[in-house]
């Protein structure tokens, strides 16, 4: 496996570069320490062992990541991460603030390309295909690997338009004026799609009678489920979630968690969370990142939470630091 160095220029022509590392790279600037000798207060000094990160699972790996390094300018945000993520399951990424879990997540659909100062080294393969190489079709990659953000971010359009946005822009659905005039409008197909996505996101019952209302009128939890539905509309294989419930109240959070559980039957879900109970509840396997952008432990969720190999992981899980 050859490491391929991919700088962000490849995508710069096609993406907005307004975000900078400080505002978007959640884990960027504060991730300072490199090795286990540089620790935050309360963190024990130990050497990470290879077998802690080995996780054998049945079935195919959706993602295979090898020696992934990410730099924000001089900051080394992610340090040699290698991990294999099984398909049709929920993988939780946990760790203290600034440990690189969001950065890792954003590497999986190359959203880091949108941060000008970010530089990615290493290899990420999805179904065996390298995504950090020349000639990768970002449109196709992001269609396959959808993303849900920390704060709900629906477009200021109607609920229907929010869902249909992706397929319409990709040309899968055409309800434009010309299509309507030529009697080949996909309005019916669009409505079926909207209903299917909203049902999958457990939102249909609540909004079915007001699909033409502005999405900003929904509550926070509904908005987040709408964002999940919007993500499902382009028929992804993977859904990346960056702390999707951190801005929501407990009831909305519970709904999102149930939803994630359902989604895992069809999709590969990778979720970043600060809430360890949540990770323990919903995930099949858990990866723990600690200071320095290092993957310390990866394994079955029960094992990681009940019997972690690493002393630091145990300290983190029991709340001694982080």
């Amino acid at each position, binding site marked *: 496996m050859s490491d391929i160095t991919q700088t962000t220029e490849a995508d710069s022509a096609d993406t907005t570069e307004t975000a900078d590392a400080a505002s978007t790279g959640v884990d960027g600037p504060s991730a300072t320490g490199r090795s286990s000798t540089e620790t935050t207060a309360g963190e024990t000094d130990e050497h990470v062992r290879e077998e802690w990160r080995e996780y054998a699972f049945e079935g195919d790996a959706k993602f295979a990541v090898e020696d992934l390094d990410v730099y924000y300018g001089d900051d080394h945000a992610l340090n040699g991460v290698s991990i294999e993520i099984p398909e049709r399951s929920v993988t939780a990424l946990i760790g203290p603030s600034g440990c690189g879990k969001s950065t890792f997540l954003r590497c999986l659909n190359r959203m880091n390309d949108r941060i000008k100062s970010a530089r990615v080294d290493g290899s990420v393969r999805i179904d065996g295909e390298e995504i950090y190489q020349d000639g990768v079709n970002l449109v196709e990659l992001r269609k396959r690997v959808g*993303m849900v953000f920390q704060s709900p971010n629906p477009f200021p359009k109607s609920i229907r338009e929010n869902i249909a946005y992706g397929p319409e822009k990709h040309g899968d659905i055409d309800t434009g004026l010309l299509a309507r005039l030529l009697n080949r409008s996909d309005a019916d197909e669009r409505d079926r799609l909207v209903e299917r996505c909203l049902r999958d996101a457990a939102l249909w019952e609540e909004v079915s009678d007001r699909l033409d209302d502005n999405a900003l009128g929904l509550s926070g939890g509904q908005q987040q489920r709408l964002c999940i539905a919007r993500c499902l509309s382009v028929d992804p294989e993977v859904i990346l979630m960056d702390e999707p419930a951190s801005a929501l109240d407990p009831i909305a959070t519970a709904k999102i968690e149930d939803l994630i559980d359902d989604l895992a039957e069809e999709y590969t879900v990778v979720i970043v969370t600060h809430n360890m109970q949540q990770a323990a509840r919903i995930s099949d396997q858990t990866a723990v990142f600690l200071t320095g952008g290092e993957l310390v432990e990866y394994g079955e969720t029960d094992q990681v939470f009940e019997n972690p190999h690493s002393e630091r992981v145990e300290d983190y899980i029991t709340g001694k630091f982080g």
Partner: protein
Amino acid sequence: MAGAAETALVREDTTGTEAVAGVAIALAVLLFAFDVGVLFDVVSIDGTIAGIPTVALLGGLLVLLGGAVVSFGVGSFLGYVETEPSPDAGLVAAAVFTLVWFGLGGAAAQAVAGGSLLWLPAAAATGGLAFAVAVLTREDLGSTLPAGAVAIVVGVVYLTGTIGPAWAWNLGFEQQASITAPFLVPVATAGCALLAGWAAAKAYGGFGARGRRMGAYLLVYTNAGAIISVLFVLIAFTAFRGIPGLLNGAAVGPGVGPSVSVLGVGVALPVSVPFVTNGVGLLNDFQGVFPAIVGTIWLVVGAVAFAVPLGVGAAVFLTEYAERGRLTQAVEVATNGLWSTPSIVFGLFGFTFLVPRFAGNKSLLSGMLTLGFMLLPLVLITSREALLSVPDEYRDASAALGVTKWQTIRSVVVPAALPGVVTGVILGVGRIAGETAPILLTMTGGTFVSRDRAADVIGGFAFTAQPPFVTNPELLQATTALPFQLYALITAGVGLGDNVSNPTEFQWATAFVLLLVVLSFYAIGIGTRYYFRRQLRHE
């Protein structure tokens, strides 16, 4: 212990005393409003109201107001009224009182002793006294005595007839200059009313922190009210003077208006307003400004059609594509500079650059482009701001769906920025629609244009067999516009005597129509912005 006096949480029943102070405030506001009427000639200064001469009435009200304020202050000082005064009236109030009393004392001494230098010590004495009262006595005395006394003194001056409607003070400058009663009386009365009203408001709040807040409220509300009323007075003034000319020869009734063809059927409108439907012609019963109205509308439409796509496009490039750095900074500086460039400079540019390129004479097209160039910087600045304020979350969300940058801009970013863009266009149209200097140099032909020579841009398009296949002579002809017509009417007034029976009425009506046209552009813009906002927000 100083300052340890107990302050009651709930003030005792103070209805009676508050009512007295409230009446004083009402008196002050009434006086102020009355005074604005005098200043704008709504109330005649040498007339009488209910048998009392206006100036004497103002004087009487002032004395009443001053008396109320002073007696409230003294009553509070002697303990008849329950208040919570601070130890002094404050430095700002003291400074204002000192200035007022310095001027008042000086003026009085000058009036009594004539041209000697005696006024200086007198002014210093009264100013110093006012300062001492304001600073050294408790707040209830310090803020009411000087203010109330000003009102009383000025009121007495009016009552005794020392300053009457015919009073004038020749300044003795090289130019003819004098201060006359119609100016001095309203201004001085307004000042006194404001001062005494402020003191009354303080008294209403029981002095102290609460009193100061009431005083500040009075000043803030009076200020806001004055500004808004100036706006309305301006519009009302133009309307009153313009409406007679506008309605000259107007008729309402079935079939009196000009006929319009609706779906091929000629229908005569039931309203006829010759001033806006006629041009100027020898055989016309009533002359009108129809060509100028049409010219103004086409000018604005052309300028907007030229500037908005360019401005928004440039803003999209600068915010979404260009690297933030030297280039964008330079463009920012340049656009801000262009926006503050005097319009006559744009006019000269159009005159020397555009006019020779379009048929060599002044034309509607060069006027449109010149005004478009004027509009461009504002559209660019406001669109840029609007695009920058679109949250990055939208762009991230769209990118995560695999939508390309251009499609994101087109279907998410620009729609979210549209209300801001429209605001910029509204502001810009307000400026260019009334602009005279640029079109004077680039567009305008005759002042009195007959109806059949009004610019007919849509009807002017003609197809030809040779390239460029479409021609429009209307765009390449000089025409007229309302601001220019108004300017020409006032400075030159050529031919007015023959064609128009009442030139002044005609001018005011033109001004009023210009105002109406600009305001209707505003209305269209605000409606558009409202529409786009509705689309973005849940209502």
